[in-house]
């Protein structure tokens, strides 16, 4: 090889790949947090939202030849509807919700979505064209795909939109109020059931975006959800459950840890390295890096 060798270039390359992985974990984790804040449960079907988003996008762009932008919007809308349906049909009817029961329900939903995706899209792996070409760009010697830049940009956009939504819109503020104290929010006239529905819609939407932007790089098949969900859950917990900005940082961190671990320690134990660190963080700080133990006490199992 030529001048591109060198420790610095490698570090840079790992960093880029790590952030790319981590961006997806971050978005999955944000989806987890939204539902967690509204209901106190972890939605095990979050990874399936990502899968559905990716597969839907593949169909719209590859089979129906829609433009990327149009397909993007359509897919997100589709997933928002799916999220609302999930909440109305499986979460809302539950009369005495206990956390474990709701979690098992989300597991059941994830199995159903997986089964449905398998029937509709088949078992094969689906690929789609990159948003803007596959010719990788040079970045101080490291190589970066245009798609990777898209991923960074869209993550940034989602985070900004998230902050704006929760800090500057009435609905967003109501959702935050519900997350902090549901009873008080209800007394203040906020319809908490509606907020739960909204949280499902939004987190399905974020899942869809994650699925759409990652599919050109990783390809999508019906069974990918579990792994994405697990990693996203890890990021959410690492960042402190309920803390979405913490989740973004933790997600990116987790991605970088994995890439560095694979590059410098051992690809055989790549995933284990990140998990071991995650466990140690939990053992030292039982409520995640950015979580407060007070908030944790409010939402016990």
């Amino acid at each position, binding site marked *: 090889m030529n001048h591109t060798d060198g420790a610095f270039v490698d570090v840079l390359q790992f960093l880029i790949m790590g952030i790319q992985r981590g961006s997806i974990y971050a978005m999955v984790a944000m989806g987890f947090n939204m539902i967690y804040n509204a209901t106190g449960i972890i939605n095990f079907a979050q990874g399936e939202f990502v899968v559905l988003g990716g597969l839907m996008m593949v169909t719209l762009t590859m089979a129906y030849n829609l433009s990327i932008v149009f397909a993007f919007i359509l897919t997100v809308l589709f997933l928002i509807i799916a999220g609302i349906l999930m909440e109305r049909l499986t979460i809302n009817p539950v009369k005495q919700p206990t956390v474990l029961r709701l979690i098992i329900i989300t597991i059941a939903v994830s199995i159903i979505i997986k089964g449905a995706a398998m029937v509709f899209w088949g078992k094969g792996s689906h690929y789609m064209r990159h948003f803007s070409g596959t010719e990788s760009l040079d970045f101080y010697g490291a190589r970066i795909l245009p798609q990777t830049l898209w991923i960074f940009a869209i993550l940034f956009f989602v985070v900004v939109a998230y902050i704006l939504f929760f800090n500057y819109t009435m609905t967003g503020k109501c959702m935050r109020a519900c997350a902090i104290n549901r009873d008080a929010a209800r007394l203040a006239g906020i319809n908490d059931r509606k907020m739960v529905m909204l949280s499902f819609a939004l987190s399905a939407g974020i899942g869809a975006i994650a699925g759409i932007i990652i599919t050109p790089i990783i*390809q999508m098949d019906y069974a990918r959800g579990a792994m994405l969900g697990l990693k996203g859950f890890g990021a959410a917990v690492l960042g402190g459950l309920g803390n979405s900005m913490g989740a973004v940082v933790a997600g990116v961190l987790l991605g970088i840890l994995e890439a560095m671990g694979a590059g410098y320690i051992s690809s055989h134990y790549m995933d284990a390295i990140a998990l071991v660190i995650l466990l140690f963080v939990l053992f030292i700080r039982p409520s995640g890096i950015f979580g407060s133990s007070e908030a944790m006490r409010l939402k016990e199992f």
Partner: protein
Amino acid sequence: MKRILILVCLCAAMVFSASTIYANPEAYHVGCAFAVTGKASWLGEPERNTVEMIAKQINDNGGINGHPLVLHIEDTQGDNTRAVNAVKKLIKKDKVCAIIGTSRSGTSMAAIPVATQSEIPMISCASAAVITTPVEQRKWIFKVGPDDSDAARNIFEHMNAHDINKIGILTGTTGFGAAGREQLKEIAGEYGIEIIADETYNPTDTDMTAQLISIRKTGAQAVINWSIVPAQSIVSQNMQQLKLTIPLYQSHGFANIKYAEAAGDSAEGCIFPAGRIMAVDTLSDDHPQKAPLTEYKKAYESTYNEHVSTFGGHAYDALWILVNALKKVGDDPAKLRDELENTTFVGVGGIFEYSEKDHCGLDKDDFALLTVKDGKFVVLKD
């Protein structure tokens, strides 16, 4: 109360009717256990499709010496426990005379004790060498998947011819990848080739950049990517992205045109050993396999409207080998087994020559080295 009664009656009717439908003493019952759904469904689905197609063909032509062929197809979901249950169900409940499958090496290994104990011949579609070795312990087990070592030998011979002697290997952590990794490490020495980087990736992995950079750092002259999962098509994309231009060799697990499609132009020029089914069109007419290959490809692609794959080919070979044996000796499992050991068959995977010592029947000449050219598999010429 009434409703329950009706339900009971309905169930009874179902049991009764189902048992009469299957009670056909003339028929030959063959069991198939494939990973039709689940994590290895890309193996099981073409296999299932293939056997259903052939069975229909056989029955339309009057069966086997007049006996209709009844297939009992079970889905293992690629899961060991389900595989054990499926094979047991086929043997004990459906009373099949032989079993085709399972799709994965792991499920085959789990099912082997069941078939052996029940003394029912089983033709596995997986490729790990341990399935049929040591042959004394595998009296009842045959396989149609080629040995990994033969595929590896083809690659190493090509490397010798091109003066490549320091390589990096990249394997998937599935039974297929792990068996390949073992074989590569074991026989590389025979060819004077040194493995200077040994990396793995998970079937669920999405990015192999880190592994490829580690390989690049060692200065390897070529990469062998040995895997059967869809994730393997990411490897060539990552190489293209990293501008890593050393030759890429793939395993016979790459022999699925979908993988090449997924990898896009990054897969151009990679070299891999495969059964000749993948490049029938570029095969010379006097090759003995030309006829069966063309026939199978044509039939499969017109029936299912999708590309033929090596894995469906395994099922094709397994079923025809079994049917030929059924023609000769009928459906007594012990006789079938003895007959299988004397089988010679020109099939999709190659020319099978089973013997008492060899329950795999293929050798390294049954592989051809292929490459990807313009998005198609062609026989490598150099």
